[in-house]
C-alpha cells in the first residue's frame, strides 16, 4: 500500500451520527470478492430508494468525485467488517473527518491507507457548515495534522503510530517479521511457563 502525506480532494458532508459499518456496507454484499470492487456498495441502502434508484438529494450522490467525507459522531461503529473501509476506498475516499470513530473501524482504515481524522464536534460542525451549500476542495496534511478549506485552517488528531504508518504505507507483516526472533523466544518462554495456554486437544491434527 502506497504511503501519502498530503491529500487534496473534494469534500462532501454527511453530518449524521452513528453511521455504523452495517450502513457503510450491508452484510449481503460481503461475500463479493474484492476484485469486483466495493464502491457501489458504499452506504447502499441509504443512497437508494425502495426501488434501488439513487436518491439524487443524498450528499454522496451529488458528488461522485468526492474523496473526503465529513461525518458525525461515532463513525464506523459496530461490526468489525473491513469491507466498510473497502467500500469507502473503492468509492474514491481517502479521508474521513469526524468527531469520533469506532475503534475497530479506525484501525481497519489505517491498515488500508484511509485516514480517520478526528476533530472536535465544533470543528466537524464548522466543516459541515462550509459544505452545506455543496462540495468544496480541501487539503489534508498528515505531517502538520491540518485541514485547509478556503481560508479555514483547522487541526485534526490521529495517533502518532497511525500517522507514521499512513505516511510510510507500511505493511505490518513485514515490520513484524523483523522481530521474528523475539516472537519465537516469547513463544518458547510462554510454552514452558504457561503450558495450559495451549489447547489440550490439539487443533491442527484434527484437520481434514
Amino acid at each position: 500500500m502506497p504511503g501519502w502525506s498530503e491529500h487534496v480532494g473534494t469534500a462532501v458532508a454527511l453530518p449524521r451520527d452513528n453511521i455504523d459499518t452495517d450502513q457503510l456496507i450491508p452484510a449481503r454484499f460481503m461475500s463479493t470478492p474484492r476484485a469486483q470492487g466495493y464502491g457501489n456498495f458504499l452506504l447502499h441502502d441509504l443512497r437508494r430508494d425502495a426501488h434501488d434508484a439513487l436518491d439524487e438529494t443524498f450528499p454522496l450522490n451529488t458528488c461522485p468525485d468526492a474523496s473526503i467525507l465529513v461525518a458525525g459522531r461515532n463513525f464506523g461503529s459496530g461490526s468489525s467488517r473491513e469491507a466498510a473501509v473497502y467500500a469507502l476506498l473503492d468509492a474514491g475516499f481517502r479521508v474521513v473527518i469526524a468527531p469520533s470513530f469506532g475503534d475497530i473501524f479506525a484501525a481497519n482504515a489505517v491498515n488500508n491507507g484511509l485516514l480517520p481524522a478526528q476533530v472536535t464536534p465544533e470543528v466537524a460542525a464548522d466543516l459541515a457548515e462550509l459544505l452545506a451549500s455543496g462540495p468544496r476542495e480541501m487539503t489534508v496534511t498528515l505531517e502538520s495534522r491540518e485541514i485547509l478549506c478556503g481560508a479555514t485552517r483547522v487541526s485534526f488528531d490521529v495517533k502518532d503510530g497511525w500517522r507514521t504508518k499512513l505516511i510510510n504505507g507500511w505493511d505490518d507483516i513485514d515490520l513484524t517479521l523483523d522481530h521474528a526472533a523475539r516472537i519465537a523466544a516469547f513463544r518458547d518462554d510462554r510454552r514452558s511457563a504457561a503450558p495450559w495456554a495451549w489447547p489440550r486437544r490439539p487443533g491442527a491434527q484434527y484437520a481434514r
Partner: protein
Amino acid sequence: MTAPRTLLDKLWSAHEILRRADGTSLLWVDRHLVHEGSHHAFAKLAERGSAVAEPGLTFAVADHYAPTRARGLAQLPQIARMISTLRDNAARHGLRLFDLDDAEQGIVHVIGPELGLTVPGLLITCGDSHTSTHGALGTLAFGIGATEVAHVLATQTIWQTKPAAMRITIEGALGPGVSAKDIALNWIARLGTGGARGHAVEYSGSAVRALSMEARMTLCNLSIEGGARFGMIAPDEVTLAYVEGRPFAPAGADLERARDAWAELRSDADAAFDREVALDAAEIAPTATWGTSPDQAVPVTGTIPDPDMLPADKAETARAALDYMGLRAGQPIAGTRVDQVFIGSCTNGRIEDLRAAASVLAGRRATVPGMVSPGSAQVKAQAEREGLDRVFVQAGLDWVASGCSMCVGMNGDVVASGQRCASSTNRNFRGRQGPGARTHLMSPAMVAAAAVAGEITDVRPFLAGRAA
C-alpha cells in the same frame, strides 16, 4: 512494592512481546478464531505466499453463513462459495474446522468457551466485533479487521495500543425477569454507543459475581455496543467450575499450574481506573430498544422518548430513528406490535437463554411467527434432551440449526422490509436484519413474552408461578 495493577494491566503485560517508541505493543495471540468472513484475510495471506504461523492455535468455524433450515448448499450458490472457501483455506493451512455437520459446530463466540478453547488468561482474536464475549472468562479478547486477521495468521501476533481502563461496577441483586442483557442495555443507554470507546471495560460488583458464566458472556458480548473493543470479568470459582473438563481446556498438572496463574487474574484492590461507572442492579428493569442504535433503549415500563425533549445532539438521530422504526414519540414501548420474533445469536443463544425463553413459552402459544436458532450444535442437542425444542415448536416457533442466522442475515434468514422483529440479538442498526427491517433488542425471556402477546410486553407477569 509494585504499583497496584488492573486486570487489563496483568493480561496486557503477560502478552506483550515488545513495545515501540510510539507506544504500540506487539502482543502474542493464544487463540485465533476464523470464520467464512475471514476470506479477505486468507486472500491476503495467499498474495504474500505466507503460511499460517500457528495452525495449532488457529480454529475455523462455519457460522456467519451457516444455513439454518437445511444444511444442504445446492440451492445456495453464494453461501456455498463462502463455506467452500473456508473449507479450502482450512485444508490448505491444516486448521481444525468445525464444519456445518460437526457435532461441535456453532457460533464462534459460543463454541470457544463451550469447547474450552477459551480459558482464563488467554489473548484471543477473531475477525468479529463480538469477540469481547470471551472476556467473560478473564481473557483479553477483541475483534479485529481483515488486515489484522491476516497479520495474526502470518505471525500469531498483533500490534495494539493499550486501551484506557474502565470499570463498571454493578452492586445489588437483579429482580426477577431481569438478565445480563438488561444490565448491558442499561449501561449502554446511559453512556451511549460511543461511551466506552477507547476503553477496556472490566465488569465487577456483587451483581456480576452472582451471574452465571453464560450470563457473563452476554454482558461482555455487548461491550462493543457501548464502543468498548474489550470487556472482561475476573475469573472466580464460577469460571473455574465452568472451564474444568471441557475438551480443549487444560487438565491434570497443567490445570494445577493454570489455577495458580488464574488466581492472580484480578484487579488489585487499589488499582486505578481511568474511568469508573456504578450501577444499582435493583434499579434495572427488563429493557427494550426503540431506535436504530443499542443505546436507544428504555425500560419496558417506559415510553418512547420525544426528540423535542432530548438534548440537541441526540434529537436529530432520535427523529431519524423513529421515522425508520415507524414509531410515535411519547407512546409507551409496551404495546408496540411486532410481526415476528427471533431467539439466538452469540449474545443470547446459549442453553440458559433457551431455558429462559422456554419457561415463558411453556404451555403458551406464540401469536406471531418466529424462529429459535441455538448458538451451537451442542446447545441444540442439550435443548432437545431437555425437551425445550418441543416447547418452542408447540408454541408455534420454528426450531432450526445453529449459526449467526437472523442476527446478521448473511445466511438468508432475514426480516422483510418494514417488518418489526423482537430479537435477542445485539444490533438494531438500520438494515441489520435485512433491508428495511425494524429490530427491537431485548432478552430471550422478553422476546418469548413478545411472541405470546404479539407486542412488546413486560415479561414479569408471564413468570408468575414459574421458575424463571
